[in-house]
């Protein structure tokens, strides 16, 4: 790769993009204008909201004689409602008409008045409220029973339940924001009034108010201003940076790839002396520059606007309620600038690879949404309050990086250093994969010289069925994998937890037959001319069957070790553990042979038909590594639980390898059957055997975990690893009967 060519292409693309008004608008104008405009609108709305006093209708205020004063004229007394609250409440004292007397009528009145925007809330004091309260205060040992009518307020219910008097009620509309705010404001004042009543009653009896309020809870914020600011910005800024890094990468990428195809300039470039790698390098650097510029400009604009808006709100509320949010600390920005670069590189390479596939800029736009759909959960996960950086989350692309950035921004360098290797490793690894994909796209003739889609779905279906090949196409294989995942997902939504073994066995069996095997068989019938070859129903070499069986046994301790590792990194939630415990209770009493049939033999046949049969055969057109990799991931995802999925992906690799090497489904079925059966038998029997026979402790030990109840001892694991490697190497040199026959034909020819 010649750097001068990369630089030439890079500089040309940068100049080209800067001459494009749309790009400049997206990269520079939009972020610079967007946030200040949003800030202005927000401030206006806030001002508008704050200046709207709640209109509250007060009913029965005349019955409060003898109680501490609540009203002074047409307002609340100043002691209970400070000036800044008082100006937000407008009280209207008016008695209802005679026909609106009574609880039901009052509720109807409230509904009518609030819905037609006459009032935001209505406060109702029972007519004999003060008299009854006085009676209670006079004789607290014998409170009067509550009146049968009562009122509709929540406190009223509590009051009745506790045998106290009927209480004032606030009638409001939960569905309306203004009504809800009005109710909250009134409730604050009435709570203070209630405390005043209590204080007065206690004082009358000579009891200190501290009896009912023995201490006052104080909250002391020990954070420093910089720390508080960092904590707020650390949640907001990484998200903003990541979202805009993706958006800023995608639009230039479409213009640089799909746009160039459309304008015919890509062909001009391809016949120049620049190699494909140099072209990708130049374009990638351009996309990365615009991605970073978009992210940083948004960051700057949001930082300045956010700080100013919050400062203005703080000034306007004058209650000290404002967030302490100044301009982001300089170190925060430095970390963001540095740590955003790998994310920018990742998104740039991904966008470039996807944009290279598009035939036109319009088609490219359609690919933005799927990319966002995949990236958005990864971006939003770190924003959740419960999200924290641990080994598990550090291994998730984008999510780990954003959480890691939070540590850096908050100055927790020790924690950041602890997870630096996994976070950076995963990010750089994904980045390398994405760049590799982009380069591959530029080497692919079918991608670069792809014509626009012609004919649509009808032609595709006709071609798929009538012009089907011996084995299914790769898209058909992927389609089956996704179909199985979707079917399983929708069925899992509708199915209830089984309460008996029969129910469980029926559900598990039906799932395997109806959702896994049947779609595979139907699609084989429709989309493949040679079903036996597609489903690999060919006689296997004997060595492969024996090898597969031995490999299942040899790998078992390693699979258990892997499960332990997964359990440590991604521990199961309490809910999942509870659900699994329920399943164990259901399965436990069943005869072993039935369990082996339902959980061992049936999946071994059905899943192998689908994943190693149809899917792997179709994907083999992409090359064995891709076929094994993709079929394993689909196989893993079909297991539902993340922990099981990860383990199943690893097992899927071995099963795929077995199928490719033997060109037969049967060694995989044998492996799968023994693998599942061993897990079932070991899970049931080993803990008991360890207890009964001391020498079993040399082989395994109980772990106390609900999901992985036992672990193998280290020597067993080492032995298993050696055996497994030896078996995998032996399987590498397999001679299948098909291959042997073919080589014989060649030699005889």
């Amino acid at each position, binding site marked *: 790769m010649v750097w*001068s*060519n990369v630089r*030439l*292409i890079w500089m*040309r693309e940068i*100049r*080209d993009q800067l*001459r*494009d008004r749309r790009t400049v608008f997206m990269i520079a104008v939009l972020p610079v204008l967007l946030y200040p405009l949003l800030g202005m609108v927000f401030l206006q709305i806030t001002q508008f909201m704050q200046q709207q006093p709640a209109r509250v209708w007060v009913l029965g205020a005349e019955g409060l004689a003898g109680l501490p004063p609540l009203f002074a004229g047409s307002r609340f007394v100043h002691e209970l409602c400070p000036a800044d609250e008082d100006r937000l409440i407008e009280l209207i004292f008016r008695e209802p008409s005679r026909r609106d007397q009574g609880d039901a009528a009052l509720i109807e009145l409230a509904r009518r008045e609030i819905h037609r925007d006459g009032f935001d809330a209505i406060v109702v004091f029972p007519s004999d409220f003060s008299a009854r309260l006085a009676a209670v205060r006079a004789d607290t040992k014998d409170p009067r029973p509550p009146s049968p009518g009562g009122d509709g307020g929540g406190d009223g219910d509590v009051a009745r339940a506790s045998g106290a008097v009927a209480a004032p009620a606030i009638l409001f509309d939960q569905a309306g924001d203004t009504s809800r705010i009005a109710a909250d404001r009134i409730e604050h004042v009435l709570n203070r009034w209630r405390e005043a009543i209590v204080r007065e009653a206690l004082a009358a009896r000579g009891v200190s108010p501290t009896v009912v309020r023995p201490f006052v809870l104080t909250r002391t914020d020990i954070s420093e201003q910089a720390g508080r600011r960092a904590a707020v910005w650390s949640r907001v800024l990484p998200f903003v940076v990541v979202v805009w890094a993706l958006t800023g990468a995608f639009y230039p990428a479409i213009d640089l790839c799909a746009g160039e195809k459309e*304008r*015919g*300039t890509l*062909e*001009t470039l*391809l*016949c*120049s*002396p*620049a*190699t494909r790698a140099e072209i990708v390098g130049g374009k990638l650097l351009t996309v990365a520059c615009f991605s970073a510029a978009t992210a940083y400009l948004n960051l700057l604009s949001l930082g300045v606007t956010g700080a100013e808006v919050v400062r203005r709100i703080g000034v306007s509320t004058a209650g000290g309620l404002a967030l302490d949010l100044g301009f982001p600390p300089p170190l925060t920005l430095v970390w963001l600038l540095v740590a955003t670069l790998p994310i920018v590189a990742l998104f740039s390479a991904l966008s470039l690879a996807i944009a290279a596939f598009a035939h036109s800029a319009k088609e490219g736009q359609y690919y933005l949404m799927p990319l966002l759909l995949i990236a958005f959960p990864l971006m939003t996960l770190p924003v959740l309050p419960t999200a924290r950086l641990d080994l598990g989350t550090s291994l998730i692309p984008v999510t780990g990086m954003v959480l890691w950035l939070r540590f850096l921004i908050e100055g927790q360098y020790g924690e950041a250093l602890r997870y630096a290797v996994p976070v950076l490793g995963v990010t750089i690894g994904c980045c390398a994969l994405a760049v590799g994909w982009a380069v591959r796209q530029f080497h692919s*003739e*079918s991608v*670069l*010289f792809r014509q626009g*889609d*012609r*004919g649509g779905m009808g*032609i*595709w279906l006709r*071609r798929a069925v009538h*012009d089907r090949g011996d084995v299914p196409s790769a898209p058909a294989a992927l389609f089956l994998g996704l179909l199985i995942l979707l079917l399983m997902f929708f069925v899992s939504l509708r199915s209830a937890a089984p309460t008996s073994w029969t129910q469980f066995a029926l559900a598990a069996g039906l799932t395997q037959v109806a959702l896994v095997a049947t779609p595979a068989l139907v699609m084989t019938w429709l989309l493949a001319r040679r079903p036996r070859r597609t489903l690999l129903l060919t006689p296997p070499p004997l060595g492969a069957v024996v090898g597969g069986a031995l490999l299942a046994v040899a790998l078992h301790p390693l699979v258990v070790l892997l499960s332990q590792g997964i359990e440590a990194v991604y521990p199961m939630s309490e809910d999942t553990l509870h659900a699994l415990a329920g399943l164990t209770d259901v399965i436990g009493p069943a005869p072993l042979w039935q369990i082996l049939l339902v959980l061992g033999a049936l999946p071994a046949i059905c899943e192998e038909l689908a994943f190693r049969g149809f899917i792997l055969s179709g994907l083999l057109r992409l090359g064995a590594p891709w076929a094994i990799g993709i079929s394993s991931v689909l196989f893993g995802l079909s297991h539902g639980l993340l922990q099981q999925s990860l383990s199943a992906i690893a097992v899927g690799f071995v099963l795929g390898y077995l199928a490719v090497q033997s060109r037969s489904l049967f060694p995989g079925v044998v492996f799968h059957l023994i693998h599942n059966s061993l897990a079932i038998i070991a899970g049931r029997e080993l803990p008991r055997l360890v207890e009964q026979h001391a020498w079993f402790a040399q082989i395994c030990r109980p772990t106390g975990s609900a999901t992985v109840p036992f672990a193998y001892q280290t020597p067993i694991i080492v032995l298993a690893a050696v055996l497994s490697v030896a078996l995998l190497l032996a399987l590498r040199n397999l001679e299948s009967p098909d291959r042997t026959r073919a080589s014989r034909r060649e030699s005889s020819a």
Partner: protein
Amino acid sequence: MIYVDRLTKLYDDCRYGPIVALDGVSFAALPGKIFGLLGPNGAGKTTALRILATMLRPTSGTATVQGWDVVDDADQVRRHIGYVSASTGVYDRMTAWELVEHFGRLYGLPPDRLRARIEDLFQRLKMGEIRDVVGAKMSTGMKQKVSIARALVHDPPVLIFDEPTLGLDVLVARSLLDTVRQLRDQGKCIIFSTHIMREAERLCDRIAIINRGRILDAGTLVELCERYAEPDLEELFFRLIESQG
């Protein structure tokens, strides 16, 4: 100098399934001569020329340009050819001068020589008035002139023209054909593909008639006419196409 030997190209089409774009095509193009590829749309002309320009890889067969193999020495091949087609666009947001200069720099020409070369090309191709015009504001004819200047900037010994007159008006097309002749007279080895009989008749020293990925026959216009006893190239062309079935 171009040698093409049993060049085959297969690719998969979503609509039609596997397609044989080129089926064992062989020919040679010599310096100072224009070799014409005459065929209808979809005959395989563009595929053959894209393989020669190293944009596509042949499924089988070999092709060499100035002694360089199009697969193994793709970098060298690209340095020795100039490629112009109806679909080699110019950048909308670059001026004519900037575009030609950019490609000249990609070819590694020193700044002084590049400047002199561009001045010369702009003068010869009468491009002075569009020197500072951006691609978006150029007519189709202007764009094609810029494409030719771009293809000639490094003075390559081999020039590949893939239906360069497509979409041009008569005057511009005539001017372009004159330019191609001048380049031939300068000793360049030229391959010129077209589906227009008159262009092939008037321009090409040797003509290969191609259809469905196969070269049906090749020779000078006189040789072809004598071989089929048919003085009219268009009639000859249809006979050959129909004889293929």
